């Protein structure tokens, strides 16, 4: 039995209604856990005053410099004592999830047992960076809780100016759109940077995210300093049986309005079967006895829309890999930035392929560590120095896939133009001779 629960009239109103209630959950914990009792007390105070009462500090585990989010209460009485003493220390352990956030029940039960023993009993699956957040431990209990989670095969994630915990989509395990082994890339890349994760010493945070196709279910383009987004180079595959089934079920209006008209580059056409062309860049599939779809893959931007609508009838190609985009982040300090293309296509099939990704990531982080200002993200650094300077440091050749369009102003010194043209020509010739 725990101590008596506080009156929480505001929070009690969040127990009704059909969605699962975190308040009911914390109250269940509070029957046997004094920290949960006092957490409710402080949270109720926040609901009444509309103020937060946590401050940070320095709490860690032996051997690591980050991964714990320390929280100490600032809700004190006149004597400077915590109003809710059993939640005066309420630290979070950030634990890295497995790729794709798959679990078996045995593991979840062991995690629950560990956190019931050492913490508040409150666990978030998952935080916005992807961590499993074990919320609410005293300073003294952080180390034993971590030790047991670590023995279970789990490790702390990132916090502060460090490589951060990563996320990858369900990917090859269950998704037909998967264009590389997301789990393997996620694990191999991240586990190469554990020193930069556990001992924060970068200018600011650095995030990787892994999405298996351009649907980008991990939201990597808006959130990751380095986004690895699956794609393919060859033609969209087709399945006539499923295409015919799709049309029979959905009809011609939907095919025209929802598939053909929504192609962003208008590269899908509805044709009479007798008028279909053949060519190495064309995909075509009959949808009934007389009509067919024809796709010119040279003009396809791999947006995924037609494949999403007609899954099975249309699918990604087989020459698969990933595009690498760098510099995505949210608002602070200069405003939102998307990641932008630095490598249009990279194979990720063999261990050597993945090693090349690790190498690119290593060089990016090394350059970031040396050149970014304090508290400057990779995208902001590139904005400041220009993409070309970044590419030259990475020894990546410029490519028109990296821009939405060429420059619209003449403010550039071009006295190296002839040399650049000569280099490109020489490279082309060498390529043709090979």
């Amino acid at each position, binding site marked *: 039995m725990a101590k008596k629960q506080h009156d929480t009239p505001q929070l009690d109103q969040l127990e009704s209604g059909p969605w699962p209630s975190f308040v009911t959950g914390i109250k269940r914990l509070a029957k046997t856990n004094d920290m949960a009792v006092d957490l409710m007390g402080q949270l109720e105070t926040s609901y009444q005053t509309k103020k937060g009462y946590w401050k940070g500090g320095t709490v860690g585990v032996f051997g690591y410099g980050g991964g714990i989010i320390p929280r100490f209460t600032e809700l004190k009485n006149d004597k400077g004592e915590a109003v809710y003493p059993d939640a005066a220390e309420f630290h979070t352990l950030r634990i890295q999830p497995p790729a794709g956030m798959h679990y078996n029940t045995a593991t979840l039960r062991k995690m629950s047992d560990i956190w019931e023993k050492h913490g508040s009993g409150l666990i978030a699956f*998952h935080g916005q960076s992807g961590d499993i957040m074990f919320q609410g431990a005293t300073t003294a209990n952080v180390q034993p809780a971590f030790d047991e989670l670590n023995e279970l095969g789990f490790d702390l994630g990132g916090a502060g100016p460090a490589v951060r915990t990563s996320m990858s989509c369900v990917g090859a395990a269950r998704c037909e759109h998967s264009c590389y082994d997301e789990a393997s890339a996620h694990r191999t890349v991240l586990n190469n940077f554990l020193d930069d994760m556990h001992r924060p010493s970068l200018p600011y945070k650095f995030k990787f995210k892994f999405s298996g196709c351009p649907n980008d279910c991990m939201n990597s383009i808006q959130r990751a300093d380095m986004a690895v987004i699956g794609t393919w180079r060859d033609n969209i595959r087709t399945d006539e049986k499923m295409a015919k089934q799709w049309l029979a079920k959905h009809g011609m209006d939907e095919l025209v309005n929802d598939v053909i008209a929504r192609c962003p580059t208008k590269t899908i056409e509805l044709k009479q079967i007798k008028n279909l062309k053949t060519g190495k860049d064309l995909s075509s599939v009959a949808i009934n006895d007389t009509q067919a779809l024809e796709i010119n893959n040279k003009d396809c931007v791999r947006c995924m829309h037609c494949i999403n609508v007609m899954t099975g009838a249309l699918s990604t190609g087989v020459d698969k890999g990933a595009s690498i985009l760098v510099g995505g982040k949210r608002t602070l300090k200069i405003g939102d930035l998307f990641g932008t293309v630095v490598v249009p296509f990279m194979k990720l099939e063999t261990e050597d392929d993945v090693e090349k990704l690790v190498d690119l990531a290593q060089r990016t982080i090394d350059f970031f560590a040396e050149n970014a200002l304090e508290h400057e993200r990779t995208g902001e650094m590139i904005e400041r120095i220009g993409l070309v300077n970044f590419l030259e440091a990475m020894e990546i050749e410029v490519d028109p896939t990296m821009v939405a369009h060429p420059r619209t102003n003449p403010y550039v010194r071009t006295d190296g133009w002839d040399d650049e043209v000569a280099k490109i020509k020489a490279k082309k010739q060498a390529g043709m001779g090979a």
Partner: protein
Amino acid sequence: MAQTALRRPVESGVPDNKQFLHPKFIKNYGNWKYHDRPRPGVLHHVSHTGDEVWSVRAGTQRQMDVYTIRTLCDIADKYAEGFVRFTIRSNIEFMVSTAKQVDPLIAELEKNGFPVGGTGNSVSMIAHTQGWLHCDIPGTDASGVVKSLMDELITEFKTEEMPNRVHLSTSCCEINCGGQADLAIIVQHTKPPKINHDQVANVCERPAVVARCPVAAIRPAMVNGKPSLEIDESKCMCCGACYPPCPPMQINDPENSKLAIWVGGKNSNARGKPTFMKMVASGLPNNPPRWTEVGVVVKNILSVYKKDGKPWERMSDWIDRIGWPQFFEKTGLPFTKYLIDDWRGSRASLNQSAHIRF
């Protein structure tokens, strides 16, 4: 201090997920052919070998007590096959090998209070932050806002009746950890920080705070004989960037920290390129425990989009078609001068054409 008891960490990093995969996932890894949705909340995947797997998706409260987790595990062990996964929006998925396991699993989840849905063209669970429960800089709560909104949106979670999928997020400060979404609710401060000059010298690294300000409105100053900071309030746009590195720069204000609504963010490349969301409403009160005023605006925008959007139009696609004037007309939201961007690069957000819908 005795160091002998300290255990060195095993720096194991990301665990191998193979040990946690459903056997059918291992068998058909990278070999799936297509999927369909037999009903809202259920995904049915078919592999090139003909293998099938059904995934049943249910909403959770994200911040879960261990009893809730054990209940979910009991359901997974009894009605599924002992394997689960979580989605990016904190939904839980149970995998089963036969169609006949689906209905009993759904019934058990619903019986235990876990709504089944969140697939396809539904309003999925809200990506959110920590708020008053755990954050050190929150302007509002997160879990409570989400609970209140999802109570209101439960029908849209359990059905697939929207034009396309709808992703929501909430954030308790302008850093926006909740992230880009079709519709986002974010704290918007309206007054410059109040500075506790007694504490600045002890707590803050002043040059770092000066450097953090996006509009260079902060400078070092001596106040009451102590080193502190001062703000040019005519420059300050109340973003709160100075508050995390310097808690005496008190930006949170129970009355003047408001909530803003943003729409049209999309991370997918499907159809148009990814988009950032745009602010369409602000000045909403931060009103616990149920943030009723925010819920009214959110539900209104979603109901107009539901009625007016064509199949496969995400929020951003819909607005692209109808244009912003009609967006404000149809939703009844006032278009104020504060919605015209004046930050860097803002000219690109103006109408640089004579394209006008009348």
